[in-house]
Structure formats: C-alpha cells, structure tokens
C-alpha cells in the first residue's frame, strides 16, 4: 500500500523533477555489532554476526574481516542446557559463515536465550520463543496471465482463531537457489484474517547474495516468477511478536531503499546493549510444490 502512494507521488514529481548525485558529509557514527540468529524446531541454533560499515566505504575496499565478526563467543540456552556455538562454513546461509550449535535442538513452545560476548568484552543478549507451527492447508503453482508457464507460488492457510499469529514465508527451488529466500512482504500477521481460511500468493524472492555470474542465475523472465516446471520447497514459519516487528520493519526498509519519498525506517530489533538485528525462534513446517504437469 505504501508503495502505491509513494509511487503516485513519484509520478507527479517525475513530470518536472531532476535527480543528481551529490556529496554528503556524514555525521560521525560508531561501529555497531549486527546479530542475526534463529533457532528452529528440530534444528540447532544458527547465528550470523557482522558489523556496520561506513556508508560510503565500498565493500571492495573492505576486507572480509571488516564485515564479519569471527572472534565472538556465542551461547544459546533453554534454561537448563547451554550450547556453545562454533564457527562453521555453510553455503546455505546468507553470508556463508555462521556460528552453529551442536548440543541443543529447538523444541516448539520453548524459550531460548542468546548471549554473545564480543572480543572487547561487551555482552549482547536476547530471548525468543518457538511458537507452535501452523501448517499450510495446501500449496500449488498458478500461472500469472498473460503467461502460462510463469507464475506464483500459492497457498491456503487456515488461521487458528484468536489474534496473535505471526507468519513468515520462505521458498527455495532445489536446483536453482542455494538457500531459502523470503520475498518482499514475506512477514504478515492475522490482524485482518483472524480465524479465516484464505488463499495467498507469493512471487519468487530475490537473493541479493546470489552470484550474478553463476549458472544458477535467473533469466530476466524469471525475475519474479516460478516456472511451471519448477519444484518449489516452502518453509512456512510461525514467529513471535518481536521477530515479526523486526522482519516487517526490515522488509519495509529494504523495499524503501532507493525510494526518494520514503522516510527513514527504524528496524525494530530485539537484542540489547545497542546491537542491531534479531534473535528469532521459528516454528516451522515444510511443503513442496511439485512441477505442474
């Protein structure tokens, strides 16, 4: 909805305006730590830790060690067992380097706390909860006219009555994507759909970390669409309120990136002591859309 309004304004302005690059002298800012952690039912915890980077410093000039925090101590606890996470290389993770647990497996309905001790001794902590997953009723592919071979992933959800369900949608084509990708607008709640059965569709998400030169790269036609012949894995996740606030504000921030009319979106994280990011429990179910004959 926001995009429509902003788009409207843009049309008016586009009739007369001009855009040019300018030099901006940035106010001073400190480096902050960025934590992106999840724990899923049936899986160990995964935490990616990075730093903020000054806006105009190009990444090519930034060494990997500037972006990644590789020397933190990371602990996850369910109150009785504490798991120490270790650095691992994982190609299905967004940045490829991730702290992974080993002893503690996520269980639906449990609380989990995260503690990150940075090399400077600063401690960042957060707690989350794995909600009971809500399984999708059914999933299917449907063409998007005028195309008959390109389309969206569709699903039917029976929302349990009672407000407070928050969802996030991820999808992956096993042969083409290296990881599960959340399309824009992937996070929603049951404010408007409480207790209802309803159908919804998602376009194919875009992975900004996908290598443009790789063989996996999509053709332009597939930018937002799934092919009729695609197999699609769906990861449908129930999350708690803090995670929903984080992911909705994050998605808005991404969507408004480069939009002249957008006002700054503050991403609402749930980690203390000035760290950015989220620690999120994921009550997950998986589905598969088979190629449509």
């Amino acid at each position, binding site marked *: 909805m*926001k995009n*429509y309004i902003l788009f409207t*304004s843009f049309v*008016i302005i586009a009739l007369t305006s001009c855009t040019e690059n300018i030099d901006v002298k940035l106010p001073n*800012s400190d480096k902050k730590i960025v934590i992106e952690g999840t724990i899923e039912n049936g899986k160990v915890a995964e935490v990616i830790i990075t730093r903020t980077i000054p*806006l105009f410093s190009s990444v090519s000039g930034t060494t990997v060690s500037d972006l990644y925090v590789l020397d933190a101590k990371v602990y996850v606890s369910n109150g009785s067992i504490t798991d120490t996470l270790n650095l691992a290389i994982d190609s299905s993770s967004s940045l490829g380097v991730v702290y992974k647990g080993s002893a503690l497996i996520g269980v639906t309905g449990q609380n989990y706390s995260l503690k990150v001790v940075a090399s400077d001794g600063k401690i960042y902590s957060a707690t989350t909860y794995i909600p009971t997953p809500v399984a999708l009723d059914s999933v299917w592919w449907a063409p998007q006219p005028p195309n008959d071979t390109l389309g969206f992933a569709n699903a039917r959800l029976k929302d349990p009555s009672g407000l407070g369900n928050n969802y996030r949608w991820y999808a992956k084509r096993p042969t083409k994507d290296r990881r599960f990708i959340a399309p824009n607008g992937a996070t929603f709640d049951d404010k408007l759909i409480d207790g209802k059965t309803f159908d919804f569709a998602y376009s194919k998400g875009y992975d900004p970390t996908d290598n*443009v030169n790789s063989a996996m790269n999509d053709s332009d036609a597939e930018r937002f669409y799934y092919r009729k012949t695609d197999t699609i894995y769906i990861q449908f996740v129930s999350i708690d309120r803090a995670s929903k606030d984080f992911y909705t*504000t994050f998605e808005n921030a991404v969507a408004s990136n480069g939009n002249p009319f957008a006002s700054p979106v503050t991403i*609402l994280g749930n980690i203390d002591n000035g760290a*950015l990011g989220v620690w999120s429990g994921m009550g997950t179910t998986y589905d598969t859309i088979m190629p449509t004959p």
Partner: protein
Amino acid sequence: MNNSFSLKTFSILFLFFVFTFQLSAQNKKKYTISGYVKDASNGEYSIGANVYIKELLKGGNTNQYGFYSITVESGNYTLISSYIGYENFVKEIKLDKDIRLNIELKLASVNAKVVEVTSERTDKNVSSTNVGSIKLDMEEIKKLPAFLGEVDVLKTIQLLPGVKSSGDGNAGFYVRGGGPDQNLILLDEAVVYNASHLLGFFSVFNGDAVKSINLVKGGMPAQYGGRLASVLDISMKEGNNKSYHASGGIGIISSRLTIEGPIKKDTGSFIISARRTYLDVVARPFAKPSSPLKNSGVYFYDMNAKINYRLSDKDRIFASGYFGRDIMNFQDKDAGFKLGVSWGNGTGVVRWNHLFNNKLFMNVSGIYSDYKFSFTAAQTGFELKLFSGISDYNGKVDFSYFPTIRHEVKFGVNYIFHTFTPISASAKQGETEFDLGGVKKLRAHDASVYVSDDFDVTDKLKIHAGIRYSYFMQVGPFDRYNKDPFTGQNSSITHYNSNQKVADYGGPEPRFNARYSINNKSSIKASYTYNLQYIHLASLSAVTLPIDTWVPSSELVKPQKGSQYSMGYFRNFLDNGYEASVEVYYKDLKNQIEYKDGALPGSGIADNTDNQFVFGTGKAYGAEFFLKKRIGKFNGWVGYTLSYTKRTFPDLNRGKEFYAKYDRRHDASVVLSYELSKKWTFATIWVYGTGNAITIPTSYYVIDGNITYDYSDRNTYRMPAYHRLDISATYTPDKTKHIEKRKARVIKRFGIIDKVTTADIQIPRKLFKEYESSWNFSVFNVYNRHNPYIIYFANEGSATQGNLTIKAKQVYLFPILPSVTWNFKF
C-alpha cells in the same frame, strides 16, 4: 499550565472589562459617527482601513466587513480615512448628534509620485497593538514575480520574516517553529484544510478572487482559536456593485477567468472566478504513443463564487463558496496497471451582518468546509481504494462593540461539528473482499466563547486583552481497539454509541497584547498568548503529501498546548516612508504529535490511527528583522529571521532533544519592485533559507543478504541551503496607442488605406473605457540553483560480490523556468 489560568484569572480579566466600561460611563455627552468604508470605483468594502479624528489622533480600523464606529464628545472635528493605495478621505464634521457616514475612497492616481502622507496615523504598524501581524494587499502581491505566472498568496506570505517556506513542492508553511497543522487558514471564515494544489506548486487561493490577506503569527487575538502557530485570514472579493467586468489571464500552463458585476447597482453584487491548469493537455502530444504518459495526466481546477446583497441599511447577507480538485491519472496499459488520485477542498459560507445600533455590529455565519482525498489502484484483478478526509459544520456569532473611542470590544461564540475520516481502505482480489475494518469515521464537538477589548489606556499605552474558552469532545459512534500488552494485537473492542462521550478536553486561553508608544514614530509591543489545539495532522513522509490526515484529540491524543511570549520594537522613518521592526519570540509547546518509529501508512487500518502516535514537547525561539519601503516608484522589503526549533519525544531519538525538520537557523528574503514608467514595472525576489534537518543513514549492514541502513540521530543532517532569485517584468501597453495601432492594422488589412484614416474609425468610448491588458514576463530561479527537494540513498551492486557502492542523490524540482502570462480586464 492549565491550572494557572483557572477561574481566578478569568474573573480578574472579567472584572477588568467591567471596570473599564464603568469608567467610560462616567464621561459626559458623547456621539457616535459610524458607517462603512468602500472603494469608490467598485463598491468593495475596505478591510482594516483607518478612520480617525485628526484633532484627537484617535480612531480605529474598519472590521472585516468594512464597518467603523467612533464615539467621542461633541465638537467640531476633521474626520480622516486612509487606506494604502487610496487617496485620503477628509471631511469636516460637526458632531452634535449621531452621524452615519459611508465613505468612498478613490484610488490614488496610478502614477502618483509619492502617496501623500497627511497624517501620523498611517503609521499603523507602530500604533496598533498588533504584534506579529501583517496585512497584505492583493495589488501589492500581484506586482511580484509569480511562479509560472500564477499569483500566489501562500508563496508571498513566505517572504515575510517568521514565515518559512517548506521548499519547492511542499504544501505547508511554518510559522515561528510551528508545524504546518498549527496554521489556521481561513477563506471567508471557512477553514481550508489543505491549501495547496499539485503538492504545493500552487496554492488554492486564486489571486483574482482574493481581496485581502491578514497573517497573525504572534499575539493571536481572542476571536481566533484552534491552532497554535498562526492565522491566515483571507477575504474574498465581493464583486463590483457598480458595473459588469471580466478579467483573467492566459499563461503557459494555466488560465483563469473572473466575472463580476452588480445584482442591483450599489446594493448587491456577485463574483465568479475559475482556474484550470492544462499541463496534462499540453504534455500529451509530446508523449510517445507507447509511453504511459499518453494516458496519464495531472491537473487541477478551482472555482470561487460569492454574492452579497444589502437588505437594508442595517442588514447585509453574503454567500460564498470555493471548490477545487486536483486530479491525477496514470495508466500503463502494458502492465495492466491503472491508478487515479484526486483531492481537494470545498467550502460554503453564508453570513448575515446586522447593525443593532451605531455601536454594536453583529455577524452570524454558517460554514461548511470539507477536504477529501481518494486513491484507487488496480492491477490484474487486484483493486485497492484508499480515502480520507475531514468535514466541518460550523456556526459562529461575532459581535463588535465600540462603546467609546478608547475601546473596541469583540465577543462571540463558535461551534463546530467535525467528522474525520482517517485513512480507510477497501481492497479486493477478484471476488475476495479483504476485511480492512471498513470506514471508521470519528466525530467531535468543538465549541468556544471569547471576549476581547482593544483599549487605549493612556495616549501612550494601548492593550488588547482577551480570553477564549474552548471545549472539545470526541463522541461516538466509535470503536476503540484495545491492545493486548503481550502480543500487541487487538484484544477487545470498546464500543461507544452515537453521541456518547469518548473523551473531552477544555480550558481557558488568555491573550494579551500591549503597545507603548515612545513617540509618534516608534513603539514597543509585547504579547502573551496561550492556545489550545484539538485537531492534529501527523505526517509520515519527509515531504508533505495530500494523504496526510487530520485526527481529533482522543483518549490517547491530548490537545496541543502552546504559549508564546513575544516582544517587538517598531519604528518608522522619513514620514512613514520606511517602516522597520525587530521582534523576538519564545514558544513553549506541549503534547506535540509524531508517528511512532516504524509506523506505516495503512497500519491504522482495522486499528485506531492514534495507536500509532507518540507525544512530546517542543520549544522555539527566534528574532525577526524587517525593513520595508512603502512608497515611491521603488519599494519593497528585506526580512531576516534567526530561529531555533526543537522537539523532545521520550519515544523518539532515544529521548534526546532533536531539531524539528523545519528548524531554520537563517531565513532571509529581499523583495523589490520598481515602476520605471506607466508601461514597465519590474520586480525581483531573492530568498535564502537554511536547509531542512533530516535523518540520513551513516552506515550499512547486512541482514538476510540484504543491505540495510543504520541511521544517524534524528534530524542531525542539514540539507543544502535553499536559495533562489526570481525576476519579472510587467508591460502594460498604452491603451490609446494600442487601439490606434489596431485601427491602422484593420485599415491595412482591408486595403482601404487611401480611403479612410484611423480618425474615421470611431469606437464608442464605453467599449474600451475599462479595457486594460498587460503582459507579465517572469523568470523563476534565474541562476538555476538546484534546490534539493529530497535527498535519498541508493545502492548498486552487492556486498557479497565486492561491487557495492552507495550513492547520495538529490531530487530537485525546478530548474530555471521562464514564463509569460497575458492578463486582461474589461
């Protein structure tokens, strides 16, 4: 603050009024001279004209309807009436009974070398109790360079010190650190909720239909209320009641036409004025057939109409109205995408003036005003409609009472019924209707009473003391969505029945202005005002957009409160040829309103809009300097403001104080016009303002592979300064020569050059007696300054591939823009 203006203060003020009237009652035999002041050429009533007794150097100003009343002891006097741009009216009177004297002022001869300054009373800025109040004459405004040839009231007031423009393409203006919603904009007493067309490129006020503009930025008199920062009171012309006339202009992107005339000579008149822009029509042929522009367009139109009729010497009625719409269509057939947006104001006012006797004047008004925004978008089966708005039914009774020459008392009552439509939406995908909560209208009663007195305490000291008491009540039907503190979701709904009280607020609003004359050329003025504001406008975007919606005070939203202290030194030089002033102010604001971090348009759907707000306080202070040359061929003004505007919100910026978006350290304007000859007039404007305070990203980080920004503290970055130079030249061809030339052309065309001479062609004088035409050439932004409208950041490439770059970009709206407009009148 509220408690300190309790009943006690009220009763002190009340006693004060009673006391002063008793004093005056003890004086000896007095008579009243009263009447109306009007323009001799067209019968238009003169607002704020001076009428005074020369021997006493005392008198008053005509009110909004041109009425004056002076009561003095019997005797022989010289009565003078003066009004800028007119010759003084002087009459010897023998006052031994009450006199009714209607005054007709003649326009000062067009090319007067110097307007005769016959008296000290033309030094109105020095002698009145008005602090921070400015009256502008439409004729003065018309001389200035106009953006694309459209004379614009709102753009002109932004050239005055203390009034800040929000930059190109922004609708609002800011007065002394107040937000755009803190300005009360009145067109013939009707509130105009969004005073801009095309996102602020033009104002809704058609220069041809406007008679006078009064701006109050400090020391707000008690008859005005409901806003904290300022009053912009615009009066429409009544229409010529002597003869029929038409006037208008044809410009590059817009044209306008006004027709006026008597309904019955000297008794009643009408005026109708209309405008339309045709940028859409002009641009269409240039668009490629495949371009979406082919089926798209942006335009506005508006209409003003007014009639008035004098029923008797004591009764007059007026009816006036405004209607305007901005329309925008966009259609991309290939993408199957269509959208339409429209917004605009409508107002209707019916007024009755009644004179009970020569000292007591009454006006009764019935007012309707309305602002609507609507938006529809459709794409392949999905349809979304959004709308919002506000409408008011408003009734007012105002009295002016002139008991003695020392007093001018005003009192009255006002009642408004507001209906708010916060952003509401309906959407459907194919046959599926989404539950978006329906239309949740909000309703409120808004009532007030006031009394004030302009009182000459001594020859040197004059005060304006007033008090207003206002009361506001939000009423049902209304559904309050109660939040579960744990999930943040709606947990229950509290329903209020029709007209059931939801929340109410009220309080006294004292107003006090004083002027002390040091001598007849200089004075010191001071004022204290306390205002309450019950309706609010919060804006989500960095720019003002027509989607911004008004909301009432509610259980969560407390009324905004503002105290303003101001002081000024006013001095005139060289026989009042120059006027100068220095004013300082300090403002304390409470219950200011902003959106929460992370709020989005539409997140108020199926929710209460006020759940998205946070509240804080503000303060503003500054100094304003003004120098004006009023008379002669070369005139104009220079204004400069130094100001600070700060806000503190516990829930924003981690509770730290921050500068408001429109905090402007330096603001300057230079306005000059020069009348070279009868044919040529030149004018120029230069403006400068510190850039807006905005929030920008300082670093980026990666979440789920996406680049996201980490922002600076709120509003710590300054956009580049805004400055611009405009020039204009107006060419008024000599009427007689022009006609002779035309005659010669006709003779040549018909090849009768040897048969007739131009002298043989007789045109009845009547036909062109009133005919006037002029060409206005103007250049906007002469040195092509790229003033930033928006600054934003865009990233290219990807962080994981090492080719990410982030660039700062600025959008500017107007390069150098020349335009030409032909204006006519007959």
